[in-house]
Each structure stands twice: as C-alpha cells, then as structure tokens.
C-alpha cells in the first residue's frame, strides 16, 4: 500500500510481512525506530513472533543463531558500534550458514564518536561471509528486506540489508510497503536445510582442523558465487508479485552512451541521478551505476554496465585509511585488465551532507579529478588542527615530558 511513512517504519512493516518467528533487539541509533516499531507490532498482536530484548548486540545475533538453528525465521537490526560489538557472531552466523536477515542502519564508527551516516560499519564486515544489499531509497529498503529473506533461505546465507542511517531511516517519504498477501505469495515458510531436532540429532558448529578448513571455505565461496546468479530471478519474481519494479543486482541510470559513469552505494545514488539529469541537460554524457548487491561483488554485471565508459568515478562513504577507496578496488578488479580512468571520491563521512552542488562539480569536471579526492575538505579546519598538532604536548605536565 502506497503511504507516506518513515523509512524505519516501512522496513518494520516489510519485515513483519515476512513473518519472522524470532526477533532480537538491542538499541543503537539510528536503527532503534525499526525494532521499536516491530516491538509495537508484536505487543499489539499484529505480528506473532518471539521478541527478545537482550543484553547486548552479541547476544542479539547469538539469540538468532540458536533460533535459526532450530528452524525459525529470524531478524535483527543494528548500526555502527553495535555491528562491531557483534562482529564475532557476524562471522559465526556466516560460517554456520544460517539465513539470518539483519538491517544495518549505516553509521560511522568511533572514535571520534559520531552517530551520523557513513558506510564504515558495514564495510568493516564486508569479508564476513554475509550477503550485503544496499538500499538507495526507502522503497528499495522495504523491498530489499523481502528479497533478503527469500535470498537468504534460498542459498543458506545470512543477508545484511544496509540503509543509510537518518538519511533513510528517519526520512518520511512515499513508500509502497509490500503487503502480506504479496509477500506470502513470494516467500514460502522457512524450510531449513538442517536443524536441531531431538528426533534426528545432529551436531552443529563442530571443530574443523587444517585437514578440512580450506574445503569448508571453498564451499562457502562457491555458495556466494551463486548469489549474483540467482538474485535477478528472485528480483523479477518479486517485481511480478508486487506488480512494479523491484531492486536487483544493480541500479543503472542513463548509462546509454555515457563516457563518464559514477558508481555509488546507498542514498547518494538518488542525489547522483538528479545531478546526472542536470549534467545531461548541460550536454555531458554521464550516468550513474548504483550497486544494490555489494557482497558478493557482482563483477560480471558491473563489467557489462561499465563497458562503454572511458572514465569511472566511485563515490564512497567509507575508505581504507592510508590506502584509499574500498569499492574502487572492487570495481578495478572487475574491470581488469581493461581499466578505464578510475577515480575515488570519498564523501559524506560521519554524516556530512553530500550536496548536489559538490557532486555536480565532480561529474562535470571528472577529468580533472586526482586518484583520490576527499569531497568538501575544510582547509581552514585542517589548518587549525595542524597548528594544534604542532604543539609538542597538550595536557601533559612539564615534569612528565622528557
């Protein structure tokens, strides 16, 4: 049903339509509105599920490990420090092959503590063995959750749905929230591959030594490689039951005859589409490639989408300190050996707005970009900090200094 709704509530409604059987909740901004709304749906009887208020994020995801292992459909949401707190369990879920679905309301990692949006949290877990989907809008966020449960249970892998904290979670906009009837037609009840059952006892999570560990990881790799193969069909099927387009691997926009393509994840994709419209009107041949699937990286699809581009600019909301772009490396690897001119633009860290004006300059003067650009870098602030750093010691008594 089309409604004016906050992103978190749209996601909560989409998750509820998927009929999760166990939800664990631990508060952290900016994901809290999602689990608050789910708790309301459970308490009021609109959603029948076990809802556990737990003691920390590790317990939140650990509770889902236990619930999923007995065959229940499971869901939680987190952000930032919470994702790092549960990191040990994040890898564990993937290793156990449990189809847990988790929202990550993307937020910066401290220090300095910062509650606003960037992608450093989910990027820190990009090699954890989870599938990572990124929402470019609240419509995409709602749809991706439905897709996530189906995908997770199809390939026996956990799926993380990333949506920009505050920018999406707290934004109210028009969303056609998938209704229960459509989701029921799309998502069959969870039928686990194996489960803990007294009638047929199995041991899960056994110790594996050097004689078989490589093979376990190889099998996981093969399973991940299936994701870009099965996702388009699952997306088409979702579009069919919803009667409208649904997100899939990529979100290409005006790529035809584009010589410069901007690649991005998350809500900045929408801003870039507006920027591209303006730039096209001014005669620039530019386009945007949004990535809905980030892990595993859909290398073949990206190569196909960028085949005509002579210049690629990757706008990233996280980076590898001391190195540069993260997504840029993925793009470079998927294009090798025919890599076009490739630029990284690090933008919107810790919630700094990524404005149309700044992106317009990036798109229209892409040829002038160095390999790595920090968008809207405040030179005056850097000069002040530089001056402070030049002082030998701050807050250290003279007698302590050598």
């Amino acid at each position, binding site marked *: 049903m089309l409604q004016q709704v906050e992103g978190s509530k749209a996601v909560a409604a989409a998750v509820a339509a998927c009929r999760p059987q166990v939800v664990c909740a631990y508060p952290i901004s900016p994901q809290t509105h999602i689990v608050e709304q789910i708790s309301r749906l459970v308490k009021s009887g609109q959603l029948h*599920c076990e809802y556990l208020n737990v*003691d920390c994020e*590790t317990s939140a995801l650990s509770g889902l490990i*236990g619930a999923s*292992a007995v*065959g*229940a459909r499971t869901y939680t949401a987190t952000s930032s420090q919470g994702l790092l707190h549960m990191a040990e369990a994040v890898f564990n879920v993937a290793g156990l092959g449990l189809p847990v679905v988790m929202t990550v309301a993307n937020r910066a990692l401290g220090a300095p503590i910062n509650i606003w949006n960037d992608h450093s949290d989910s990027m820190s877990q990009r090699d954890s063995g989870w599938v990572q989907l990124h929402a470019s809008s609240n419509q995409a966020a709602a749809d991706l959750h439905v897709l996530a449960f189906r995908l997770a249970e199809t390939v026996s892998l956990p799926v993380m749905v990333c949506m920009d904290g505050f920018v999406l979670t707290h934004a109210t906009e028009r969303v056609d929230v998938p209704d229960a009837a459509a989701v029921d037609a799309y998502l069959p009840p969870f039928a686990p591959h194996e489960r*803990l059952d007294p009638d047929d006892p199995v041991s899960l999570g*056994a110790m594996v030594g050097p004689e*078989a560990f490589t093979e376990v990881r190889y099998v996981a790799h093969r399973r991940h490689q299936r994701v870009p193969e099965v996702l388009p069909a699952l997306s088409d099927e979702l579009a069919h039951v919803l009667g409208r387009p649904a997100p899939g691997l990529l979100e290409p926009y005006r790529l035809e005859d584009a010589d410069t393509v901007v690649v991005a994840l998350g809500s900045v994709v929408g801003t870039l589409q507006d920027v591209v419209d303006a730039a096209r009107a001014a005669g620039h041949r530019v386009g945007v490639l949004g990535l809905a699937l980030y892990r595993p990286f859909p290398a073949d699809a990206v190569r196909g989408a960028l085949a005509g581009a002579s210049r690629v600019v990757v706008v990233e909301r996280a980076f590898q300190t001391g190195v540069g772009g993260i997504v840029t490396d993925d793009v470079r690897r998927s294009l090798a050996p025919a890599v076009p001119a490739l630029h990284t633009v690090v933008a919107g860290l810790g919630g700094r707005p990524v404005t149309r004006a700044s992106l317009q300059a990036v798109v229209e003067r892409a040829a002038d970009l160095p390999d790595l650009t920090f968008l809207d870098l405040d030179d005056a602030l850097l000069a002040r900090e530089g001056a402070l750093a030049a002082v030998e010691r701050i807050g250290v008594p003279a007698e302590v200094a050598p």
Partner: protein
Amino acid sequence: MTTTDLGMPVKYYQVGSWAVGNRLLDPERRSGQSRLDRSNALTSGHRACRGCGEALGARYVLDAAMRATGGRMVTVNATGCLEVFSTPYPETSWRVPWLHSLFGNAPAVASGVAAGLRALGRDDVRVVAQGGDGGTVDIGMGALSGMFERDDDVLYVCYDNGGYMNTGVQRSGATPPAARTATTQVVGPEPGNVFGQGKDMARIAIAHDVRYVATASIADLRDLEEKVTRAMSFHGARYLHVLVPCPLGWGTESAATVRTARLAVESGFFPVIEAVEGEVTSVRRIRRRVPVEDYLVDQGRFAHLFKPVRRQEVIDHLQAIADRNIARYGLVEPVAALPSSAPPAPTAPPAPPVRPEVP
C-alpha cells in the same frame, strides 16, 4: 532429598566407607548409569584427557537431563575443552542435538533456541546450555545474566575446573586464590593467584532470583543427577555449577579426580547447595570434615604452599575461605572445630591424616 517409605532420609553411602551403595537402593532410585537402558548423551571415543572431570560431569548431567525430558532436548555448548574434545571433524560424540557457536555467547544462543522452539510450537523440547568456568563467569557472564534476567527457559550448566584449561591452564575469575596457573606463576614474593573475592557464580545466580540454582561435584554423582532432575522440573532460567577437577591443570593423578572433588566438598572449600527463587533451600552437609590442607596437598597447583617452605599464612587464608562457607551455609552440624588445626612449624614432620584412607 530422597526418603524411604517411612520418611527416613536415604544416605547414598555405606556407613564407614566412602563407597556409594547403589545396591542398597530401590531400583528406581539407583543411578541411571547402572541401568542397561541408560542414555548416552556423550558417547565413547572423545578426546578428553584421562581422568577428565568435565567429561564425567557432562555425561551425567546430560544423561540425567535426557531422562528427565524423555530425550526431548537440545544442547548448546560454549567453546572450551568440552566442545573441542567431543567434535573433532568429521566425528561427534554427541547423541543429543548439539550446537556450538562461540566462547561467550552460549547463554544467548540457548535463549534463542528456547525462543525458536516456542515460536515453532515445540515447547516440549527443553534446552540445556553448558560451558566451562571461563566461558561462564568471565566472557559469557553478561549473556548469562541477561538469560537469567529474562527468565528464559534454559538450564545453564557450568563445569568449573578453575581456569582456562583448553588454552593451557590460564587464570580465570573462578581460579582459587594462590593456585598456580600459566598466568599466575609460582614466582615473586606472592606466588600463584591473587587473593581477591573471586566470582562465586552460584551466589551471583541466586541474586538474580532465578527459579533454581544448585552446586554439585562429580564426587557425588547421585546428588548431581538428582539436581539435574530437579532443575528440569522447573521452567524458566536455572543454573547448575559443577566442580570438575582437571588433572592437567590441577597437577593431580588421573585416578584422583573424584577423590579431589570429594576433598573440596568435605573441606568446605566447595559448598554444595541448592536455592529456589533466590533463597537457599538445602545444603549438602559435610560428612566428615577435613582441613583444607588435605584438599590442597596433593595438587601440583598448590605445591608451592608446602615446599620448599611451608606457607602457613596462605594455607590459613584458604582455610578461612572454607570456614566461611561452612558458617554461611551451615555445612557442618553441630558446628565443631576442626581436629588438628594447630599449624606445624615449617620443619616439623607432616601432620597425621585426619581422615581414613580412601579405598
């Protein structure tokens, strides 16, 4: 406590010996392990050390839980010796549904198992979680406290061998004072573990007012079985703390595991108690009290208390811990002074044993 038809308490031992008299009991009161049709939750072939107290304890606990539930149960295991020695790929010793996830999250995983089973309408299947003392009182304590506070339908069992034995005998929050471990070595002016307040997890559990808390040891397997049975008669959060000597970590003979556990109990150093909803409801009284020294003297981890010089003040300090347990729970009745408590001089010959030789 089990009673006869006339209401007389049954004592599970023969007067004058330490032997447990299974044959003195009615068949239905005998240990499950003496029955041909016993369950075998942890079966043979695992890689535990010779004389492992944890393997013995876990088998009795899970077998008793299987009997109590008619086999309708799921087990969650924290990382540790028990997990490592029971499931080397591609084998498993478990004949119960068994899940291992991480070191510190077993209570939360177990809560999730219980929630999942409830959501699936399978409330008849019960949940038993287990871990060592490191996984329980240290790295898993937050999750355990959360499980207690939510009153999730889980029996959590801690097998306490007083240290991180799987990683090579390092100190945990449950390591006794003065004990030698790999991280509290016998060097410097105060060798061995520090004297702190430690973590008395059973009392911490009691403070959560959970349904049922008990301690037990592998020296009294019938008591252990009985407590598991009682624990499974409750729904909600329950905690069982089992003392399981570790020959490797404690520096004891493989054949001395049960005897060592018995001395821990009979000295009062390890109190055996039961509590329901925050109140202590019963204690296992000490049959024949022994000085703590009897418990310490054959353990390599306490050898530095006796040679090259006897460290009487440390022994006294450890005795004071046992005395406090005895006073706190009324473990001895009537309260009597220890025989032969006078400290001998460092050069004096060893004091004569105050207990009869154990057969």
